């Protein structure tokens, strides 16, 4: 069997960094979590990441800025945005900029699975 796909979580909120990777591992993925965008950009996992679950509002570099930076560096990683600002009006704008999905915290397991299947059509 192939090594499981790597999903990376970038979120400044500790409870998300703790809980989300465990659930993703239960799904059968490998997971790495980072508390900031620069930490991820400088890590060895950048190239291996097959899907990025990304918080929008973070101190320093925001999720949107990281998305731009990845485009500049020509990394074509599917991105699932997660945000705690429960404003559904933002969703279409984020989607139009190339995100696979945008989940409003708190999101259900089903919503996460649906977003993952859209991001990783092969699996």
């Amino acid at each position: 069997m192939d090594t499981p796909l790597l999903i990376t979580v970038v979120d400044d909120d500790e409870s998300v960094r703790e809980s989300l990777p465990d659930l993703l591992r239960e799904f059968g993925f490998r997971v790495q979590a980072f508390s900031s965008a620069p930490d991820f950009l400088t890590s060895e996992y950048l190239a291996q990441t097959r899907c990025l679950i990304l918080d929008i509002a973070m101190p320093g570099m925001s999720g949107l800025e990281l998305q731009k930076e990845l485009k500049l560096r020509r990394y074509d990683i599917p991105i699932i945005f997660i945000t705690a600002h429960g404003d559904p009006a933002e969703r279409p704008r984020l989607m139009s900029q190339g995100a696979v999905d945008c989940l409003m915290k708190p999101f259900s397991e089903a919503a996460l699975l649906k977003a993952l299947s859209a991001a990783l059509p092969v699996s």
Partner: protein
Amino acid sequence: MMFSRKPSGASSTIGDSENKNGMNNECVRSSATEDSLRRLIDAVPGFVWSAAPDGNVTFLNQRWADYTGVELCDAQGFRWTQSLHPEDAPALAVYWGQLLQSGEAGEYEARLRRFDGSYRWFLIRAVPQRDESGAILCWYGENTDIEDRKRAEMLLAGEKHLLSMIAGGSALTPILEALCELVEGSFNGALCSIVLVDLKHPYPASEPVPRIQPGAAPHVPPNLVPGADGRPADAVLCPVAMAAVANEQVIVGDLNHETRWDGWRARALSHGLQANWSTPVTSSKGTVSGILSILHSEPQTPSTAQRNLIAQCTHLASIAIDRARNEAALGKIRSELTHLARVASLGALTASIAHEVNQPLAGIITNASTCLRMLGADPPNVTGALETARRTIRDGNRASDVINRLRALFSKKSITLESVDINEAAREVIAMLLGELQRNGVMLHPEFADNLPQVMGDRVQLQQVILNLILNATEAMNTISSRSRHLQISTHADDNDRVCLTVRDNGNGFDPQDAQRLFTAFYTTKSSGMGIGLSVSRSIIEGHEGSLWATVNEDGPGASFRFALPRKPQCDNAGESVTIQEPL
């Protein structure tokens, strides 16, 4: 002059020491004119008297006897002092003694008892008569009735006192009590009460129904004062209620000859009260706002002067009642404004709250999903499930902490005074706002002074002010893109023993001309918001005996808002000063 019969025309008066020859001539001729002189002296509208150099009164005119009911022989020597008011006698004795010692003319105001037992104020004047060597031959004196002037003075002083109470913001009850006592002092032996009248419309289009509420009745028997039950006034129950319903003065000169108000009348008569004058107090809107009632122990109707006095007193009552009612209405508006401002801040904070709560909720749901999967696996991963369940609880507590902080900040409770650490209060507000500041790209620079004295105040209200100032500063920097946004929150104790907190931004500042207008309700330079935050903030700070003001930064762009509060007294009631700080 009246006593002068000299052809020379030179004037001569009693006590004119330079014209003793004239006096002597008068004495020589006195036998011929004694009767007419006596008639003259008795006709003078006052008491005329003379006394020996040692102060022994040797003569008093007939008017004295007529007034006091004390015959001259019983008043001579020092016995006349029996007619003095007991409160005035000791001081007058001292004064009279000093006059006799010094030999100078003088005057004194004192009350003298009339034959019927009542007292009136008199101005007592004494002038020494000297011989050629300057030795005192005798004293001449005259007492003038100054009751009316004295009453006017007392009324004026009472009025001044009442107005200063009203202007000083005293509560309504003590003001009305003082007014009742003023009325009682002005109407000998009368009892005064004031009830409040509130006009209520039972239905929107109906006639208003007056309701009587307790006002003040310092000495009136309680069972004669209506209003304790708060029911609509019923004119058949008592004259006060009748005056309230009709909005007209009700004068009952003799309750013995009255057929109305059976129960009330019987109670009044049993207290020995036989007359009642009930006068409406008219508000500035022209409606009845109270009734001033005067009860007398003797049957009587008001004279013109007394009617004027009553009018003066009801006018004072109307000022006091109007002011108290306006204050109450203003207080209600103010608290509504405060609440509105909280709601407005709440609106601005909704995003922040959602963020704060959604973060732990996301953790909870994800953890629970993980937990279910771990337990549902074959074999179940119990160790992993336990760990995830623990994290679920922790995230749940985090969410609940957020809610508790919010509840404390926005609950509509009345002011509670406690000792507040401004640094701590500000830190809590900042903790709440971190998300909001971050989203606005604002860099926060807290500079909290060490050993900052505590202040006495309402912690929640003060935190609301801090919240307002920070949100304002954040908004002021919203449009700044050419430079980074810096927000500085600093505290210090100033030289006047006050605790200061400053919120400084580097936004666009404001026109210095607007420094005062900024704090006016509904004035705003922002595109959104109602502009009531700063006015409410100022009223909160001023309610804490502090001040809040704004300045344009001199050493850079932006504005600074600062409040200063008096520090908590260091040695107040030792028992109460021990206040444990409760975390929110």
